[in-house]
C-alpha cells in the first residue's frame, strides 16, 4: 500500500501498526508530531496503548524503562535536548537490557539554540549502549522502525534501539512511501517475547537495578560489551525476513558505486542521498567516486566498513556533528579505527558540514570529493578536518 505522509506522521502511523503496550513521551521539535499524532490514535481508541504524558524527557525515559522492565513493549520519540535529557536513563536502559525503541528526528544541540537538523544528539548518545539505525529517507525510516522492534526484542539481543532520521530535511518532508498492512506488521514483529524475570512476575522475585561495586561492576560491563556481538547477525537476519516480505533489502552499510572507486565519501542519513546524486554527476565526468552509507552505526560494523573501504585510495568522512576538542568528527574516528588493521590503508580525511540545519548541497559534496583528489596529489589530507559550507 502506498501513502504520502510527512515522515513524522509516518512514524506515528508505524507506531499505530506496532501498537506498543506503553508510550511515555514529551514533545520536542522536530519530533513533536510523532507523539502528537500517536496520542490522537490513543485518544480515538485506534490503539490500546497506555500513553503516559510526562513532564520531561528525563521522566519519559524513566517511565519507558520501568514499563519495559515490567515486561511491556515500549516506544517513545524525541530529539536534541530531549535525547540529551534522557542521557542517564539511556545507559540504564541498555545495561538493564530493556528493548525500548526510541524514534529520533536528529537535531542540533544548544548553544546557540537551534531547532534544525544535525547529528549532535545521536552522537551524544553514541556511547550509551543503544543500537542505532540511520535512515536516508522516509521509506528507510519506516522500514527501520518496524525492523527495530524485532531486532531489539530478539532474545539474543535485548537492547534498546534508536531509529534516526534528519530533523526537518526528512522529518517534515512528504514522501510517497510503501507501507505494510497492519496485519503484516503484527505478524512480522510477533507478540512481545516477555522475559521470565520482570517486575510483575511474582512467581520469580528478583532484584532490579542492583548495586555492584569494585567486586562486580566490571564483570557486569564486560558481559554487556560481549552481548553486542549478537546484534549484527540478528540485524541481517531481520533484514532478510523483511526483504522477503517487502522486496526492500537492507544491510549494515550501503555501498554505492564502490567497486572501482578511488575516492569514497562516507555519509549518514539524508546527506547520503545528495552524495549519491553527486556521484552520478561526477561519474559522467569520468571521476571514479562512490559513497559508503552507514545504516547500523551502533554496534559499529567494523569488518564490513573495512572491507568496503580497503580498495579506495582516499576516503572522506562527512560528520554532521563535531567532537569539540577532539581529534576529528565522531564518525571519522570510528572509520579510522575500523581501518587500523587494514594493511593498505586509504588516505583518510574528515569534513564537517550541515551543522544546525545548514544545507548540504551537491556543490558541497563535489568540494568534499575534490578534497580527496587533492589529498591524493599531495599524499595526505592537509588539514585533517575541513569545515565545508561555512563562511570564511
Amino acid at each position: 500500500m502506498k501513502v504520502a505522509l510527512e515522515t513524522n506522521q509516518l512514524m506515528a502511523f508505524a507506531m499505530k501498526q506496532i501498537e506498543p503496550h506503553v508510550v511515555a513521551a514529551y514533545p520536542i521539535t522536530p519530533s513533536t508530531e510523532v507523539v502528537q499524532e500517536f496520542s490522537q490514535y490513543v485518544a480515538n481508541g485506534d490503539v490500546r496503548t497506555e500513553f503516559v504524558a510526562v513532564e520531561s524527557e528525563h521522566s519519559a525515559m524513566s517511565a519507558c524503562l520501568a514499563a519495559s522492565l515490567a515486561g511491556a513493549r515500549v516506544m517513545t520519540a524525541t530529539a536534541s535536548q530531549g535525547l540529551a535529557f534522557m542521557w542517564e536513563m539511556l545507559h540504564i536502559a541498555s545495561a538493564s537490557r530493556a528493548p525500548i525503541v526510541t524514534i529520533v528526528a536528529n537535531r542540533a544541540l544548544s548553544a546557540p539554540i537551534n531547532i534544525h537538523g544535525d547529528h549532535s544528539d545521536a552522537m551524544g548518545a553514541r556511547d550509551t549502549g543503544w543500537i542505532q539505525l540511520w535512515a536516508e529517507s522516509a521509506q528507510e525510516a519506516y522500514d527501520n522502525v518496524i525492523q527495530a522492534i524485532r531486532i531489539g526484542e530478539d532474545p539474543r539481543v535485548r537492547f534498546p534501539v534508536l531509529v534516526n532520521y534528519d530533523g526537518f530535511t526528512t522529518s517534515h518532508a512528504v514522501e510517497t512511501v510503501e507501507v505494510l498492512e497492519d496485519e503484516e506488521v503484527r505478524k512480522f514483529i510477533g507478540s512481545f517475547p516477555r522475559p521470565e524475570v520482570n517486575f510483575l512476575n511474582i512467581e520469580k522475585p528478583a532484584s532490579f537495578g542492583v548495586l555492584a561495586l569494585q567486586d562486580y561492576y566490571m564483570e557486569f560491563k564486560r558481559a554487556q560489551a560481549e552481548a553486542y556481538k549478537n546484534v549484527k547477525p540478528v540485524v541481517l537476519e531481520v533484514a532478510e525476513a523483511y526483504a522477503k516480505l517487502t522486496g526492500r533489502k537492507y544491510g549494515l552499510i550501503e555501498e554505492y558505486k564502490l567497486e572501482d572507486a578511488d575516492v569514497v565519501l562516507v555519509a549518514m542519513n539524508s546527506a547520503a542521498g545528495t552524495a549519491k546524486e553527486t556521484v552520478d554527476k561526477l561519474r559522467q565526468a569520468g571521476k571514479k567516486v562512490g559513497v559508503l552509507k552507514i545504516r547500523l552505526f551502533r554496534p559499529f560494523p567494523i569488518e564490513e566498513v573495512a572491507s568496503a573501504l580497503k580498495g579506495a585510495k582516499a576516503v572522506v568522512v562527512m560528520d554532521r556533528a563535531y567532537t569539540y576538542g577532539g581529534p576529528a568528527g565522531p564518525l571519522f574516528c570510528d572509520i579510522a579505527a575500523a581501518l587500523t588493521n587494514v594493511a593498505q590503508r586509504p588516505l583518510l580525511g574528515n569534513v564537517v558540514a550541515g551543522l544546525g540545519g545548514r544545507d548540504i548541497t551537491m556543490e558541497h559534496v563535489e568540494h568534499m570529493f575534490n578534497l580527496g583528489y587533492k589529498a591524493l596529489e599531495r599524499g595526505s589530507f592537509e588539514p585533517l578536518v575541513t569545515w565545508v559550507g561555512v563562511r570564511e
Partner: protein
Amino acid sequence: MKEQKWNELPEGVVVPEGGNSQGTYIVAGWRTFKPVVNSEKCINCMTCWIMCPDNAVQASGGKMLGFDYLACKGCGVCAEVCPVKAIDMVKEER
C-alpha cells in the same frame, strides 16, 4: 562466597532472586539507635514488617517476633510507622 566470572552473570543488572542481601551484607555497624519492640503494646499489624527497607523485622505465623540486628541499620522507619508506638529507638552501647 565464590565470586562469579563475567560470563556467569545473569542478563541485565538483575539478581534473579528475592531477599538476596539477607545474611550477605551485615549493616549492624551503621547503627546509632536500635529498634526495641514492646510486645505488650504490639498489635501484630505487620506495618513495620512491610515498611522495613532491609527485611530486618522477624515475623512468623502472623506474629511480630523482633529484629534481625545484623540486617538492621537503625533507620527508624519501623518506629515511625508503628500505629501504637510499640517500637522505641534505643541508643547503642559501644
